[in-house]
């Protein structure tokens, strides 16, 4: 098999084409939001929000609703609870997240065990991008466009409250309100990411590509471009691994993203090491 057909073959299947399209949309949205998540040191929230979607998904399954809507509602409720609990600063935000995270995930597990059917919902836990239907894709697309639009319109406020929330507050812009909007956006993105990587792995789509980009650049615009690019590159590579090696798609994508992060980290640090060595040599001679 030549290289070209090796690359093209997987995408002759309609489910792989659908997976690829979904991946492009999901990585674009997650890449953009992910940059704000890591810059505002909110990685833990991303992880927590994906886990707290579980009871919503299970409840929706029990009630015969759309699973996506169930996860979305649970994620949004958690976002609002986290910002409400940590509002007066008596309980720190990470404490509020820790409580919501474990509580909601436990509720999800309890509901699942009551169902006595872990099997039906395993795609919720671990994701299955290869099984996305056209309707699901349409929903993911519409939501992604909305998330990107809101992030674009609020970019000034997002940056301002990230850099200097105290200054923003004295000028009448409540940083807590902007944070709540950001949390809601993250909840929405996490819910669409769950389709690809599942509840347990999804935060990686949000965080890892952005973190890889942060290793390379410290300019906001470049960070956004690189974060999206790394997400898409890792995602597509992961799809190949999944197709040819038979790995679960969610795990394959997350593993590839992690490997890319590791690789960039090593290259960068080796570069810094040799750079220092050369400098030391130059100063000795």
């Amino acid at each position, binding site marked *: 098999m030549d290289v070209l057909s090796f690359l093209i073959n997987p995408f002759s299947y309609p489910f792989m084409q659908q997976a690829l399209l979904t991946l492009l949309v999901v990585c674009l949205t997650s890449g953009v939001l992910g940059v704000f998540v890591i810059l505002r040191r909110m990685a833990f929230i991303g992880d927590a929000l994906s886990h707290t979607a579980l009871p919503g998904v299970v409840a929706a399954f029990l009630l015969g609703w759309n699973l996506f809507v169930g996860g979305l509602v649970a994620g949004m409720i958690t976002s609002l609870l986290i910002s409400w609990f940590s509002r*007066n600063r*008596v309980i720190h935000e990470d404490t509020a997240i820790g409580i919501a995270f474990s509580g909601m995930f436990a509720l999800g597990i309890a509901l699942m065990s009551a169902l006595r059917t872990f099997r039906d919902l395993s795609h919720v836990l671990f994701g299955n991008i290869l099984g996305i239907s056209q309707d699901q894709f349409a929903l993911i697309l519409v939501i992604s466009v909305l998330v990107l639009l809101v992030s674009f319109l609020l970019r*000034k406020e997002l940056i301002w409250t990230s850099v*200097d929330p*105290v*200054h923003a507050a004295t000028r*009448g*812009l409540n940083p807590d309100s902007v944070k709540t909007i950001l949390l809601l956006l993250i909840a929405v993105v996490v819910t669409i990411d769950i389709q690809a990587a599942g509840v347990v792995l999804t935060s990686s789509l949000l965080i890892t590509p952005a973190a890889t980009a942060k290793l390379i650049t410290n300019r906001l615009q470049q*960070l956004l471009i690189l974060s999206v690019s790394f997400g898409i590159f890792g995602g597509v590579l992961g799809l190949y691994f999944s197709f040819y090696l038979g790995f679960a798609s969610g795990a394959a994508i997350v593993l590839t993203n992690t490997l890319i992060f590791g690789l960039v980290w090593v290259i960068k640090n080796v570069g810094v090491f040799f750079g220092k060595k050369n400098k030391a040599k130059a100063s000795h001679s």
Partner: protein
Amino acid sequence: MILPYGRRHVHHSIEGAPAIEAQELEVYHPGLDEPALKDVWLRVPRGRLVALVGPNGAGKSTLLKTLAGLIRPVKGRISLLGQERGNCYHRVSYLPQRGEVDWAFPISLYRLVSMGRYVHLGWFRQPNKEDRELVHHAIEELQLSDLMKRQIGELSGGQQQRALLARCLVQDSTILLLDEPLNAVDSQTVDIVNRVLKNQIKNGKTVIMATHDVERLDNPFDGVLFLHQGREVTPPHATPYPIEVGRKAF
């Protein structure tokens, strides 16, 4: 159309009213039983340079934040330019302590300074040509033109402090509340800040500055409010200042 931040209304200042008047202020930090400020009075006429002096934890930052509208006092009254607290917030600019800014966030000095214009833009609107000119002018005044595109995390402490002051200037406000603008900065920054403040006072602006070192400033202060443990105190060997700004001013 401007969609202003917050639900506050924008009012004009009242002619002849002092720049700042605060009476009987009592302020608490969340979760603490001891007041951060207790029975604090402050009256500052327009066009004056006033210092808040005291050791760390004396309540200087808390008083500035209360005046800036960040903390709501449980007791007491504040009026700025003759208006109730909050009505003239666009006429007040605030310079936080350097530690309150996330300097690791990847934006340029130019972007940081332009944040001073945001209060006039409100939701969604981006700075226009006039805003950009004001930003350039302020950056020039603080002698930071060469560093305009530099990331804020790559600036020295003194340059960061000057960038924050430039951000205050571009807001084009009447009252400047500055929290330790000369803390741990180089002598070049001290000189530049001194000159800029002198200009501001000459143009009729009112400046209140928290400091624990009254000597650091060339400009003589018009008045000083000494604070200790959240209360106004009389220091034993205080040099007399031209005007009273504390309780005696009422």
